[in-house]
């Protein structure tokens, strides 16, 4: 029935112009609004069918966990539909519009604000899911307007990758703060790298490389009241620091083409870069045998803090889910530490649950353990529905400074002005 109403909507949208039926008085539609109440989930085994959408490798391999879950809950059936990452966002958005949602879906962390604001997501039942089990930064990705609308499933965070062999040759130490990171980049360049440190000069996602530096310097995207606070002196300083790599010829102002980074790092023309766990496999594949000895990872440099970016994927349950109870039970199941470890073994997705890092390969492998350590100090952007648009503004202003030679202070003021005019949506 609801679907019928919605169909009429777009055809008869004229009615709205004439009749002037509009938003509710607070101007926010029904989305979001005040803190939503989470319903509890009954105890006991899950029953019935749970439809799950999951992307990429996660979607492909989720059957492994689904089978375990079904063994534990013989009355339940989990049906997984793998969805290509490429258009997953659009598929979820159209599904919400048409009211044809699954019970559970994987959602990229930076989409959370947008989907939560549609009121399509079910608030996380706090009696079932323990917030404290997760990394703080990861949990924050699920929180929209004071309420959590999902559960972090897997995480990723950014570290400094650098060629330890070249660093040794140049006699530079592991970077610990901004100055020593600069020294590392300079040293790597002296040791033969064309670019000391690869940083993204602009274009989609540049903010993910830049914002850690801003956070390290004490800058923030929003203040405690949730208003944009981009135009701080700390932000300007961070942008100046970021831009200095380009001015000093340590970083290339040309956008790295696909493959250029991995290939350049393996070949020694790029001395260092900042990226996430997937790059461990990529560079080792590129560098061939023995390459794992030639490079190493470093924690983010410390200024005020040593903060990094945290991203990944959250699991959400839709309000329109046909089997809400079993859906949440499944989500709870996949966030158990032992299941998270098994999931890591299956698709190398890093656990969002802290205790899953305490044993096994994640604790023993020094490179992996460093990701776990960095996750203790990692932030995510605020889950506001307009985030992607604000992110694009930050990307554009980074490019304006780095490539276009704009003044960092002016660029930061422009970021703030544009972010304010975009608003936090809702």
């Amino acid at each position, binding site marked *: 029935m609801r679907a019928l109403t919605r169909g009429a909507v777009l055809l008869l949208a004229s009615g709205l112009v004439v009749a002037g039926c509009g938003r509710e008085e607070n101007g926010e539609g029904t989305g979001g609004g005040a803190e939503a109440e989470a319903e509890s989930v009954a105890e006991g085994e899950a029953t019935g069918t749970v439809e799950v959408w999951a992307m990429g490798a996660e979607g492909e391999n989720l059957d492994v966990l689904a089978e375990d879950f079904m063994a534990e809950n013989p009355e339940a059936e989990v049906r997984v539909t793998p969805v290509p990452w490429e258009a997953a966002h659009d598929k979820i958005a159209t599904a919400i519009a048409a009211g044809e949602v699954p019970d559970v879906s994987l959602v990229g962390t930076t989409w959370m604000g947008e989907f939560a604001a549609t009121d399509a997501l079910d608030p996380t039942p706090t009696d079932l899911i323990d917030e404290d089990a997760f990394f703080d930064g990861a949990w924050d990705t699920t929180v929209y307007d004071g309420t959590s609308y999902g559960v972090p499933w897997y995480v990723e965070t950014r570290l400094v990758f650098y060629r330890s062999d070249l660093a040794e040759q140049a006699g530079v130490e592991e970077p610990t703060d901004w100055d020593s990171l600069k020294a590392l980049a300079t040293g790597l360049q002296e040791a033969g790298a064309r670019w000391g440190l690869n940083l993204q000069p602009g274009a989609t996602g540049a903010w993910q490389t830049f914002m850690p530096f801003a956070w390290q310097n004490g800058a923030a995207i929003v203040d405690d009241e949730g208003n944009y606070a981009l135009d701080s002196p700390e932000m300007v300083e961070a942008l100046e620091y970021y831009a200095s790599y380009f001015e000093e010829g340590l970083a290339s102002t040309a956008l790295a083409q696909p493959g250029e980074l*991995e*290939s350049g790092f393996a070949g020694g023309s790029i001395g260092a870069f900042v990226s996430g766990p997937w790059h461990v496999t990529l560079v080792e594949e590129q560098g061939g045998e023995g390459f794992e000895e030639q490079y190493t990872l470093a924690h983010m440099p410390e200024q005020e803090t040593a903060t990094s970016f945290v991203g990944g994927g959250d699991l959400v349950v839709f309000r329109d889910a046909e089997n809400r109870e079993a859906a949440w039970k499944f989500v709870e199941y996949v966030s158990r530490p032992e299941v998270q470890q098994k999931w890591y073994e299956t698709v190398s997705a890093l656990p969002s649950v802290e205790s899953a890092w305490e044993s096994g390969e994640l604790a023993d492998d020094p490179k992996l353990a460093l990701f776990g350590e960095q996750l203790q100090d990692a932030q995510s952007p605020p889950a506001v529905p307009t985030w992607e648009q604000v992110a694009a503004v930050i990307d554009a202003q980074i490019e304006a400074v780095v490539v276009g030679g704009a003044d960092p202070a002016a660029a930061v003021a422009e970021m703030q002005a544009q972010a304010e005019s975009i608003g936090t949506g809702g």
Partner: protein
Amino acid sequence: MTAPTHATTPGPAGPGGAVQPAAPPSAAARRGRPEGRDRAWVYVALTVGLVLLVGPFVWMLLGSVKTDAELRQVPPTWLPEQASLDNYRVLFERLDFATYFTNSVVVAATVTVGNLVFCSMLGYALTKLDFPGRRALFVLVLGMLMVPGMVIFVPLFVIVSNMGLTNTYPGLILPYLAGPFGVFLMRQFISGIPDELIDAARVDGAGEWRIFSRVVMPLCGPALATLAILTFLASWNNFLWPLVVAQTEDMYTLPVALALYAVGQNATRYGLLMAGSVVVVLPIIALFLLLQRYFVRGITMTGIK
């Protein structure tokens, strides 16, 4: 037909123009087209063009047997260092290939046939039948061609969903079964068919359907072949619509299924991407090979006027 009034303007004869070979006359000679040196130049020019055009295709073919590491290499390599069919193996092992291929064929073939029939019908009406509203109808069709697809995507999905057509073949097919592109194409081609021919058939007492199917359609071989190639291509490659309409994996079409594994959240598996692209492209090339034979002069056309 528009008379070529300027064709009689005298001009210098081309080098081969005056030479008429003895029997049997070649196709080129019958057409009065370049001979000898002229033709050699045509071949040279075409070959140069060909090299420039097929480069990326060849790279795609070669890329599909390379490893991901080699594909990421900068500068890129042409010949694979270690050719292997692993990418294809992965695709075929992981994908329920028969299902996706069947879905793709059913959808693309139905859409193509629908466009051939319905668009020619309207194209015929728009050019050879006089009726009130004809001009407005044409402008409307043309207008539809110009609305950016992105704009109507969400409303279209809501409508299809309300009709209960998600996860069904009709949901995948109906919105594309008769497109404005085909109408415009067929209208332009049918407008080139002499009215005399149709009038003659009318005088002989033929009904409009008969004229359309027995007189006009046989003359439209090249146009129908073109429409078939282009419609099939568009439908076959369509990605977003089938992804959104399909609610379960078994309704995915080939491009959707192939995209599942190639593009990740943060990294792309280029080997799978290239192999997938090759797999998707082969049926299209086969169809092109099959249909390009119709790019020959309509014989019936020549005797008229």
